[in-house]
């Protein structure tokens, strides 16, 4: 195996470890710990469904959170006033097809495919898409500076994004 290939595989393993940990925090509703994965000033977005190539100022994003908004979102989910998630739904996410490229020694661009299964009072909704990250190396782990979700569906059939995708 070439040295490059070995490095790629090593980086991917690091990223996979990080993404699996993130998925676990979300599935278990440990959102305060999840929020700690974000660097201050980070952004978290869900792109428009039909044309995900446009920017935030010329199209309507499903979610366009800056760090303050994201913090408020987590707080609202944890303090019980997000009634669409009180009691919490059951969430289970599958993460796969992980890709990672080191942009610089400190910055990694990563992406994965996901499937999220949300179950609430007998109603099941599924969300499938890709999640793209800009990550900063911090010690032996990472901090998120950008988290961008692209869903692969034309409309949110029977779904909403009151929880964290």
């Amino acid at each position, binding site marked *: 195996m070439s040295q490059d290939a070995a490095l790629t595989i090593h980086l991917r393993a690091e990223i996979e470890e990080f993404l699996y940990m993130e998925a676990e925090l979300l599935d278990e509703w440990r959102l305060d710990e999840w929020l700690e994965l974000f660097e201050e000033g980070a952004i978290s977005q869900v792109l*428009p469904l*039909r044309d995900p190539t446009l920017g935030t100022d010329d*199209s309507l994003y499903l979610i*366009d959170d800056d760090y*303050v908004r994201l913090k*408020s979102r987590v707080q609202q989910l944890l303090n019980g006033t*997000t*009634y669409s998630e009180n009691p919490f739904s059951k969430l289970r996410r599958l993460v796969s097809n992980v890709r990672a490229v080191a942009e610089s020694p400190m910055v990694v661009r990563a992406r994965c495919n996901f499937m999220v299964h949300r179950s609430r009072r007998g109603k099941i909704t599924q969300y499938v898409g890709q999640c793209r990250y800009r990550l900063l190396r911090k010690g032996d782990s990472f901090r998120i500076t950008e988290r961008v979700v692209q869903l692969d569906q034309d409309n*949110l059939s029977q779904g909403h994004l*009151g929880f964290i995708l």
Partner: protein
Amino acid sequence: MDMTTAHAFANQWIIDDSEDGVFSVRAKAYCDPDIYVAEQKDIFDRCWLYAAHESEIAKPGDFLTRRVGARELLMVRGKDGELRAFLNICRHKGGTVCRERSGNASTFRCLYHSWTYTTQGKLAGVALKESYASGFDKDRFSLYPVRLESYRGLIFICYDETADGLKQFLSGAVEVLDMILDQYEGIDMTILPGAYEYTMSANWKMLMENSMDAYHAISVHTRFFNDYMPNVMGVKMSRNDLFGRTSEHVGVRDLGNGHSVGEIRRFAKNMDATKRSMWEEKYGKERTDRLINYNRNLLLFPNTIIAEQFPMIRTCFPLSADVTESTSWTLVPEQEDPAIRAGRLQGFTSFQGPGGFGTPDDIEVLEQCQRNCRELPADAYLDSSRGMKQEVCLPDDELQNRVMLREWRRQLDLPMGQG
């Protein structure tokens, strides 16, 4: 609905007694499959329905395919500059004439056997036409036209040949649309890409009521008022600041034909002074004050909400008695200060969107109401009497529900109970 069917239903769908302040609606109105069928025929196939904004089909040849009411339409600006709507169905064997969502075309070719139509809906040519008899008359095969009229850029369609024109249908809503759109006069408006499209397991009338209902705001939207507003927007508002009768214009008005408007005080004022003097010159001081200091939420019967604040246009349509499909667009000035645009979109996304801090909780309660409606006894009623004996109804009263439901009953020709 014909009388025999009507009598098969219990006899009082709505109890409307202004003497005693009683307004009750049978819970079944929200979950009965027969009512759903009657609504399709007597309401959605008869009323003018919001379909699109002119900016979406601005140039000759621009087209849009979209479900409006129960059918998919092809809306196109013809080579002659006229806006037209057609059923998106080929006259040969029912193929789909245009399979794209939007674009610009000089002709539309049906995939199945390549019959080709002009932008004015005429059959322009058929493939391998030698085998058709000489009497084959292309003029007999134009696309099925659907009535289309627009008012100040808002395009409406109507499936009923015999219905009154759009302006007559809009009735008192014309003045409210003017107030909303006057603020953008001379400015090119555009619908931003990225409409919110979602479905929910609740009856469409529940969603319409919910869209105008300020009564639930304090309980369902706790997080928006107690968390998001103070912590992110830096504003703290009480119920009274928002919906209280703080001045003569605050309140809900019946606009005729099932339409209504709720006016509340604006809490964010970002009006530049040049506009104020321009408007004062044009509309006078009183109307200008009203334009600047109030927001209007307009309910257009049967299925459209126009919220001035963003502005938002939202339609909903029943897929069954229990499932509603909803689409929200935002209409914005094409050219505007990026900071104003950003604030506008943040406001929209943070409340209206399916990922916002309001809508998911609305969906949660509406879906529970829907499930519960189906479990209630057949003769159970729901209440919409709030504010009934008041001289003025506030946005957290229920006049708008009564206005909508009276029209609903009238259109379905259901028997009405008196107390």
